[in-house]
């Protein structure tokens, strides 16, 4: 490294303002996700113009909520260099126990209290994850594989295995409550449910935490290098507990929305969809090794997966192909990000 390199640096920084797509993609890998998303939408619309109907778009929006909440939690943990696979079990645990509790003991609980209880329940389970990750000094993947089994095992052994088909009425009502409604061309009533709002709000809150608070910077610092971050004075214990607690809160919320939206509580639900969510986050440009990614990218990744899941049928591709397509996209996007990074 010679002096001339630093001088070059000084000179080049003034030039690099000019726009370059490659540079943009390297800085904001979610551009690729957006481009893929737009490409798919254009292709699908060309084959089947029915895709652009409001009802399809609203279906996509509705289908994104649970996955989006999960994905925000996964993303924030990934940003700090960890990984979580227990969030589905946390969601299943909170949603089912809470439904049982409300149904059998507190039938009059208002929905707001139920939502808050779901958030608190999820936070509690998440904090257990965080404490284990910090104190056992074991990679979070191992810890959360363990707690996924633990939470789910506890749920099925002690709380119940019965599929609840008739929800407490206030939960069902929340699932149906419209944000807005209109009549589509063929006369059917299309509803964007109220709970859809929760996703953008959660995304905003997550964005705000990550970009406007010291905790947010600490999360990325830990994701960059945990040892160095701790040497610089970041308290790893606080960060881990916050991270997993926050992801747990989002999971609890997602779980209860899942119940309300589907109007049934199945204790066997959700667990098994982790990989789908992690795939969405990675497609959104977050590196699996941590320290990078954006909230917007995460949402785009979720949209991409949801769109693939819901539109393949519209263009006449069997739904069994869905995984194939998602798999190809992940490999393509990964290969693309990696080569971009090497080129610098």
């Amino acid at each position: 490294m010679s002096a001339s390199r630093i001088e070059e640096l000084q000179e080049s920084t003034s030039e690099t303002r000019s726009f370059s797509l490659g540079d943009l993609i390297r800085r904001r890998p979610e551009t690729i996700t957006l481009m893929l998303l737009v490409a798919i939408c254009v292709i699908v619309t060309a084959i089947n113009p029915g895709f652009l109907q409001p009802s399809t778009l609203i279906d996509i929006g509705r289908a994104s909520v649970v996955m989006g909440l999960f994905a925000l939690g996964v993303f924030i943990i990934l940003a700090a260099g960890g990984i979580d696979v227990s969030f589905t079990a946390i969601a299943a645990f909170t949603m089912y126990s809470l439904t049982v509790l409300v149904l059998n003991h507190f039938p009059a609980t208002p929905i707001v209290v139920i939502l808050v209880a779901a958030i608190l329940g999820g936070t509690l389970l998440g904090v257990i994850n965080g404490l284990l990750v910090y104190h056992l000094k074991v990679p979070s993947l191992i810890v959360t594989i363990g707690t996924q089994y633990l939470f789910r095992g506890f749920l099925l052994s002690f709380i119940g295995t019965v599929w609840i088909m008739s929800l407490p009425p206030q939960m069902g009502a929340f699932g149906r409550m419209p944000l807005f409604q209109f009549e589509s061309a063929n006369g059917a009533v299309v509803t964007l449910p109220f709970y859809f709002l929760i996703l953008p709000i959660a995304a905003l809150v997550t964005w705000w935490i990550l970009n406007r608070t010291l905790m947010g910077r600490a999360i990325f610092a830990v994701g960059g290098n945990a040892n160095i971050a701790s040497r610089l004075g970041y308290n790893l214990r606080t960060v881990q507990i916050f991270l997993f607690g926050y992801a747990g809160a989002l999971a609890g919320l997602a779980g209860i929305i899942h119940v309300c939206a589907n109007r049934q509580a199945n204790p066997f639900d959700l667990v098994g969809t982790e990989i789908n969510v992690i795939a969405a986050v990675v497609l959104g440009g977050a590196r699996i090794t941590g320290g990078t990614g954006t909230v917007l990218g995460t949402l785009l990744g979720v949209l991409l997966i949801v769109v693939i899941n819901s539109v393949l049928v519209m263009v006449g591709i069997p739904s069994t192909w869905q995984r194939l397509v998602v798999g190809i996209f992940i490999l393509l996007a990964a290969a693309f990000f990696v080569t971009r990074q090497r080129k610098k």
Partner: protein
Amino acid sequence: MLARATSEQGLGRFLELRNIQKWFGGVHALRGIDLTLQLGEAYHLLGENGCGKSTVIKIMSGALEPSAGEIVLDGRTFTALTPIQSLAAGIETVYQDLSLLPNLTVAENVALNEQLVGANGRLARLFDRSRLRQTAERALVTVGLPTDRTFLNTTVSDLPLAARQLVAIARAIATRAKLVIMDEPTTSLTRREVDNLIRVVERLRSENVAVLFVTHKLDECYRIGGHAIVFRDGQCVAQGPIENYSKKQLAELMTGRVIDSERYRTGKPMAAELLNVSRLMAAGVEEVSFGVRQGEILGITGLADSGRNELAMAIAGVEPAGSGTITLEGRDVSIRRPADAIANGIGYVPEDRLAEGLFLDKSIFENEIALIITKLSNALGVVDKEEGRTIAARLSEEMRLNTKDLDLPVGALSGGNQQRVLIGRWLSIAPKLLVLHGPTVGVDVGSKDTIYRAIQSLAEAGMGLIIVSDDLPELLQNADRILVMNNGRVVAEFDAEQATEDQLYRAMLTSKMETVQ
């Protein structure tokens, strides 16, 4: 021998260590350190690798707890500091590994800590972007880095190493520091950047900030001036104004034995030509031709961008050459990858031994036999461990490793010993030619001595050696001939016995202007 620092009762007394002890398991790393640091002074903490320097720094910065003793900081007594306490009191450390967060921006790396310390480590606080930028700009100007928005928002992993080193220094001075500790801050800086750093240090001292250097580069210590603190085996063996000690005295204090800085090279090259490189072209290397005889030690130097690194890597197959011929013992050889070089008997000890050379979490034994693992295994792929151990023990003996425990992970060894393991590994395949790239970077005086002696005995045995290095005394002491590279070409050749450092420097720098003209 024990000279105390002057004016012990100064008002500027900032940090005092009293009888600090540190045990790591059964190892007594610090055996009662007493040290007083005053504001506005410069200190040079000197000693061999493994003497306890890093441990003391980590205790000051709160990364380690002492086993016994007390720390008096700004009049308050502690048994141990936390990182936040230490930072809040104004102790900033530039670690050897720079401790930058690669995924964050320059501005964040420089100035985020100010806010973290301001919040006393609590994270439930808003993060002030405009203050971040102001603090970062102020600090970057001081170390001579750009301050425009693009640079501030550059991710640190995209910066060259020298710029990263300056960013790390900028972070240390971004806050109102009272003591700045710099652990080998100049390893990747050029002369001009070092000059700039020295100005920064002078400025800090005039602002009544104490600066503690940890370094192996004695010349820089003399230029900066101040107090020398010499450690040996976890004890402080000397303290006092650095100008009271000669280089030789300091080296002896550090090692506890007499080190002569005479020429190591005693042997003579043989007549037979071993290697001939003709019109070699590679990225950054323009038509380089030279030869190495058996038993000869050839030094190659130049500025970092002169092509010397690329030349070494081309011969070793790490970054293969574009064109030109390499002849070994009269036979043309094609070297497209490291395996080709190894097959032809060319060994390469890379500059960055941690990243490129060693398996840090594997044992000495496993590292030493890494190249001969196929030879040691039978038809079923089972490795003959007994044979391997015998060989590893012999290599460690030859390289004078300071431990007999071959199961120790290499990561636990000092830099000098790691380098010896790496060279020892190459000896296992008895190469005809060994290319050593910066063989003593980050290695202390005592280890240098051992490595130089080993290099000489390899040459005695008929091996050809190429040392690529910017440590000029190293080349002058060890080589037969020295080639100076510039702008990808060999611009001068010196007889190492006659040449002086000054001549080499001039060839490195002035010929650059000639080639430009």
